[in-house]
């Protein structure tokens, strides 16, 4: 690392360790590596001992960690400067996807860039909290009513664009990322409860705008037994897998539900059920403890952040991570309707993992680029 890049006012330079000079946060990194390790173990079993699939996941993890590492090097200051442009670019891509989708006569979520497919909505998961945080950060908090209205518009436009794709899960995730920024910005609790009530009241309206398959998912969630071999099959088999796992689980490679193909999507969205079947409630508690540790560490980083932008951004990113795991586990256990969200860092799959690790990269960057001033 070039010494010239080091801020001259950094008083703590002498005490910097290797991880600090690499801009890594050891506790967070350790927890993420632990999760990745668990992921590979579970994937090996859930895929039916498909070692090739495990290797592909290793490659993806490598890519994701590289992205994390790269973003951790990036000083939050330029990131903040670029935020409006990143958000505008993201919006433009969302429109492009929609137009391409119109032409292609069907739902489209990605742009085919030849070498790989790029989902603009993934970018928006990061760009949304950055934009809202950027918009609110230079002004006193809690935000004024006018700023709040403007921020709401910033949240609404990309959300509606993603919902049009249609990708309801991501739309809700992106919207919640923005809303969490508002929450951390200190909007009054009366407003929070009022919005929640409004959301509940608008649910039937939402139903009206839903596609048939989305309505089917909600119906299936409400009563999975109505079509046990069709739409309800996922949820029923998932609950059987989890429930039959019991306290201690059936043991690694011994989950009959996943090994014998009864559990659908068992290495992707439903990997939690495969894990729960083989490792039981105790295994789950370990997993949840790691997740909770990551969240606590993330929130601590947010609290210790030195400016409003990074604080708001860090808080929102951590809560988005939590939404991921809560929605996924809620879905797999039958508490929530089936929404196609992976279990963060454990499910097999690429795009969302890269986004998540990018968020952790930003978190580490925020934490390691602090100016060590007395608070």
């Amino acid at each position, binding site marked *: 690392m070039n010494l010239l890049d080091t801020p001259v006012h950094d008083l703590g330079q002498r005490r910097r360790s290797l991880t600090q000079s690499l801009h890594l946060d050891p506790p967070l990194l350790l927890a993420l590596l632990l999760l990745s390790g668990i992921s590979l173990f579970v994937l090996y079993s859930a895929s039916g001992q498909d070692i090739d699939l495990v290797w592909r996941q290793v490659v993806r993890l490598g890519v994701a960690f590289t992205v994390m590492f790269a973003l951790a090097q990036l000083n939050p200051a330029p990131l903040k400067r670029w935020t409006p442009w990143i958000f505008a670019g993201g919006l433009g891509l969302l429109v492009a996807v929609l137009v391409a989708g119109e032409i292609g006569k069907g739902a489209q979520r990605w742009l085919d860039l030849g070498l790989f497919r790029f989902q603009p909505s993934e970018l928006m998961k990061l760009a949304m909290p950055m934009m809202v945080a950027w918009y609110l950060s230079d002004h006193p908090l809690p935000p004024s009513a006018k700023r709040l209205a403007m921020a709401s518009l910033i949240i609404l436009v990309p959300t509606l664009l993603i919902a049009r794709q249609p990708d309801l899960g991501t739309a809700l995730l992106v919207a919640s990322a923005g809303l969490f920024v508002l929450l951390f910005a200190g909007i009054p609790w009366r407003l929070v409860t009022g919005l929640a009530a409004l959301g509940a009241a608008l649910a039937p309206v939402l139903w009206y705008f839903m596609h048939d398959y989305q309505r089917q998912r909600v119906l299936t969630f409400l009563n999975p037994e109505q079509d046990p071999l069709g739409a309800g099959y996922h949820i029923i088999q998932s609950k059987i897998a989890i*429930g039959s796992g019991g306290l201690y689980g059936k043991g690694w490679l011994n989950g009959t539900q996943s090994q014998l193909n009864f559990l659908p999507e068992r290495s992707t969205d439903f990997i939690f059920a495969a894990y729960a079947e083989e490792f039981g409630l105790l295994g789950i508690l370990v997993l949840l403890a790691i997740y909770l540790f990551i969240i606590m560490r993330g929130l601590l980083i947010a609290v210790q952040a030195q400016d409003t932008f990074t604080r708001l951004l860090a808080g929102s990113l951590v809560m988005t991570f939590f939404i991921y795991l809560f929605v996924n586990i809620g879905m797999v256990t039958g508490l929530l309707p089936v929404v196609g969200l992976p279990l963060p860092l454990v499910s097999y799959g690429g795009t969302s993992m890269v986004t998540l690790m990018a968020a952790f990269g930003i978190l580490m960057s925020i934490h390691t680029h602090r100016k060590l001033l007395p608070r």
Partner: protein
Amino acid sequence: MARPITLKDHFRETRLFTSRAIVALVLCIALMLVLVARLVDLQVIKHDTYTVLSDQNRVHIAALPPTRGLIFDRNGVLLAQNLPSYSLQIVPEQVDDVDATIEELRQLIAISEDDEERFRKRYQRSRRFKPITLRTRLSDEEVARFAVNRHRFPGVDIAARLYRHYPQGSLAVHALGYVGRINERELQDIDASNYEGTDFIGKTGVEKFYEDILHGDVGVQRVETNAQGRTLRVLEQTPPVPGLNLHLTLDADLQRVAEQALGEERGAVVAIDPRDGSVLVLASMPGFDPNLFVGGIDSKTYRGLRDSPDQPLFNRALRGRYPPGSTLKPFIGLAGLEYGAVEPNASIYCPGWYMLDGDDHKYRDWKKSGHGPVDLTRSMVESCDVYYYDLALSLGIDRISGFLEPFGFNDLTGIDTSGELAGLVPSREWKRRVKREPWYPGETLITGIGQGFNLVTPLALASATATLSTYGQHLRPRIVAASEDPDSGEVVDFPVVSNLAVPAEDHANWHYIIKTMTGVVHSHRGTARRIGENAPYEIAGKTGTAQVFSIKQNEEYVEEDIEKRLRDHALFIAFAPAHAPKIAVAVIVENGGSGGAVAAPIARKVMDAWLLDKGRLKSDNDAGETP
């Protein structure tokens, strides 16, 4: 751009954020506790329920069909066996579009309309997860073709099965019977759980009668299957109990002699060992190849068999009910002696016809010119009808029917193969009940010569002949001698069952009648003299002809003018050696014309084969021998 200068209170903002972060953490922990509560509910409280559901998912009960027992003749010749075959099965539950799948399978494997129709019938009835057979007896080539393309057909699989095969073809088909696919009606009658995985059930003959013994008991296998229904491993199993092998009393060689002797004729031959009721021959011709029926006969072939004027499917030996004709005369003669209605040496005069008082109907004798003076012996040897008109009249119908019944003429013989019909001996009571008419004396006359209402099956006639040969020892005819456990080799002999003995105990009378019957064959005037000429053993026999249609009064009966199908049936009963009988035979040749010329030589061939070729004449200890 004019911007109001806003002062940020960093300390206040940090405090606000920290409090919000704490709320956020509390929210996360609270929601995680909700998840944990849900997981405790699923994994601890409802654990047992979900364990059961999980096991139900993966563990399936598979039936292991037992191997059907083999059937052998008395010398160990294999008559029915099981050969391996491959059949194509579809599990409806695992097939999205059955129509399209069948069409695609047609590219690889020949599937006839009949196959498809049968499949569809079962498809509508059976449960979705049970495999249904689409084609049986795939060729090796078809098996290979499917195996290569198997990945394209989820829910379709090849099952190795055993199918029934009859290596002797049509030989003894009417005794042996055959198996076929279980139909809906049969499903009602059987214990369906014992037939899980069994395709075939006995349809006729021994195969049907001994279905319980031949089938065995189904085994059970608990197997682990994956979501696609493929069996992965066996968890535990109860092996099936194979069906017992059966050893028949039938002699395949003798059966073949009888069938060849009948040749192109339509008719039946039944041969019984009088000493133990063993059925040696049970032939009904023409026959058919039972192998046609095993895999499901195609409708064209079936129509051909069903509609053939020769009625090959008709089991004449068990179900053909013919007037016994003159073969009844020895029994009527014995009744006459028993009841003292005849004096053996007293003659009556036969003018060629007989008339009742107050009736101008002429009861003809077969010999138009008459037999002249006739005593009992001559009446038997020459088969004089007039003598028996007179005898029947003096006996009366009540004593005739009462005497004939213990011979089994009015009943099922009780043979252990399926499909037998009962004969008929008319009586006053019967006529009142069935015909709602009184009995007329003229009917007594024709009953005396085995015409009129009398009906008998070849089997019952052979059984009565055997009973006659043993002085009234009436044994139930039996076709299965013993069963054999294929695993342990344990043989169980089936018992000889006595029916009610004929209550005529004067040996002299039996002896006398048998002597007259030897005259039928061995005297120079005997109606069956042509088979007695060079016989190295003594035969007691009686010819018969049964009228197929009645000729009008005063009309000439010229055999050649009558179309073959309207000719009389030719009958012959015999046993030999006459005074130490080892075989009793009844032969019926439909439209054969003359009993002595057509039926008797067939009986002689069967007796020769048994007594001479098989050497039974010399050996004395072969009765009841175990095969």
